[in-house]
Structure formats: C-alpha cells, structure tokens
C-alpha cells in the first residue's frame, strides 16, 4: 500500500503542528514518515494511517522534531559563518589585500590627523549603520517576495535574515560609541584597532549580504528548482 497525495499533505500539516514551519526541513521529515508508514503497511496492511503515523513519530523520541530542527538551524548558521570567513579571507590575499590595507591606512591617517576624533568616529558609524540598515532592508524585501511567490517559509531564509548569527556580533557596534569620550585622547594603538575593526566590519557585512546570502539562495534554488528564489 502506498501513501496518497492527500496523506502527504496531512504529513506536511503534521510536521507544522509539531513546530517545523520550514518547508525545506518539512520535506525531508515528510518523506521519512511516509517511508516508515509504507514499511509498516507492508507488515500490517490493515493498520490505519493515523496509527502508523503515531508509531512512526514515536521513533523520533520525546523531543519529536525539535532537536532535528534546532541542529539543522545551527548547522546551516555555522555553514553561513564559515562561508563569510572564507570569503572575508580573500580580502586579505592579493590582489584584494591592497585595497583592504589601503582602506585601513587611509582611515588611520584621517583618525590620526583629526584632533577631535568624534568628527571621524560619528560619520563612520552613521555610514556603517546606514549601510547595514540598507542591506538588511533590501534583504528583508527579497525575503518577503520569496515568501509571497512560494507561499512557504524556508529555513535558509531564516538563517540569512540573521546573517548566520553574525547580526548579533555586528550589532555590538552600537555600543562602540559609548567607549569614546571627547576628552580622552586616542592612543596610537587604539587608532590602529579602530581603523582595522571598521574596515573588517564593513568587509564582513558586504561579504555576508552580497556574496554568502545569494550563494545560500542559489544552493536552495538548486535543491528546489520548482520554486523561484533567484
């Protein structure tokens, strides 16, 4: 006996009821449950669908699908961060390192020359947060469009929205102005750290939004060609 189309839809609803809202995760679980149920039917053809499903779900343990979803989200976020690291590293290799080092040096020179460091720090932070806001708003619009076009929630989108968890690190930048005070002179070392950190922050943000996020979207597109992500 084989699972019917409407039972497949029931299985999708079942996974959603058990807190798996992402279609890319549901799909694998639905196939697993369906295979398990069909296997049970081979041994006992009279078994009801609901009962077979209950027995199959029991095999997932007391936490049901939640462990799988949590681990999958963690794995995907880690994959995202690793990609960001990989592509950020390229900015420290020839030829890109020339531009990276030049940007750091130029920023350092400006910081070094200007007496009131806030004249540099404030515009730099406004610029960086402006960029971050712009990137995130653009990204949010794309995500909304995909949700509208496909009618489904996707885990890869959830991960890219958080920039693989990097969004929390990047947000630490908000607190940076607190450590500056107009009266405190910036030491030479601090000026270097500031210049390096600002350029690095910008590169990571750029890489995350412009390279890694589209790459992840492309990977999802490869897996689910019937939907339009790209």
């Amino acid at each position, binding site marked *: 006996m*084989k*699972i*019917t*189309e409407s039972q*497949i839809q029931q299985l999708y609803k079942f996974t959603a009821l058990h807190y798996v809202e992402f279609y890319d995760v549901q*799909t*694998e679980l*639905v*196939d*697993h449950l*369906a*295979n*398990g149920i069909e*296997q049970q039917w081979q041994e006992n053809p009279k078994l009801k669908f609901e009962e077979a499903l209950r027995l199959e779900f029991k*095999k*997932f*343990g007391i*936490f049901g699908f939640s*462990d*799988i979803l949590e*681990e*999958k989200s963690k*794995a*995907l976020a*880690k*994959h995202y961060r*690793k990609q960001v690291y990989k592509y950020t590293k390229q900015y420290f290799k020839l030829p890109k390192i020339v531009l990276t080092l030049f940007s750091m040096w130029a920023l350092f020179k400006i910081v070094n020359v200007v007496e009131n460091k806030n004249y540099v720090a404030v515009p730099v932070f406004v610029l960086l947060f402006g960029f971050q806001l712009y990137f995130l708003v653009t990204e949010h619009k794309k995500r909304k469009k995909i949700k509208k076009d496909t009618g489904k929630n996707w885990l890869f989108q959830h991960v890219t929205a958080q920039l693989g968890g990097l969004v929390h690190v990047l947000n630490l930048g908000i607190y940076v102005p607190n450590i500056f005070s107009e009266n405190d002179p910036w030491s030479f070392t601090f000026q270097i750290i500031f210049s390096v950190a600002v350029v690095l922050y910008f590169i990571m943000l750029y890489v995350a939004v412009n390279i890694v996020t589209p790459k992840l979207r492309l990977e999802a597109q490869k*897996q*689910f060609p019937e939907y339009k992500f790209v």
Partner: protein
Amino acid sequence: MPNSKLYKGSLTTIILKLLNEHDKMYGYEITQKVKELTKGELNITEGALYPSLHKLEADGMLDVEVVKVENRLRKYYKLTESGTKETVNKLEELQNYIKTMQALVGKLA
C-alpha cells in the same frame, strides 16, 4: 538493542562509509541499510541520524539533491570530494580505535 552510547561516536563514520559504497542515499534508506547490515543489532535513531547528516552537509562533506519520487520529494545525500577524503580518514581512525580497544580489552580479559 546494544549500548547506543558506544556507537554514538561512530555514527558519522558509518554514514560516510555507507555513502561511499552507494552513489546516493536518503535518510530512511540509511536507517534501513544499517539495520539490515547489522541484522537489527544497530538501530540508528532519527533524532541522531538527521543532525549528523545536516552537520556533514553544512561542513561540505555531503552534496544534496532533492528529487520527486512518486508523490513526494526525496532528499538524497552523496559524498563530495572532501567527503570522500574524510571517509578514508574517519575509517582509519575507527580501525585504529578498534585495534586499541581490542588490545586493551584482550589484556583485561
């Protein structure tokens, strides 16, 4: 069912080895294959299998292909180039571990 904790550390190696011997496999197929090969001695739980598969996928060891089979979508896993290399390392590690344990248990027995 034997002590599953003893097998836990070897789950990744088992998955890699199976995928090395088959072109591509899906989750349920892996659980059934392990059951068949071990004559029901080892039962990989769903809660352990999928996190391992997803971790291997995220680490670039596995490639994924989603195919429509009958009335549903099926997610197939296959080894990438680095996954194939990792299989060799993991198997070597496991074999060394087995040798060490045999030497140790042999002496204790």
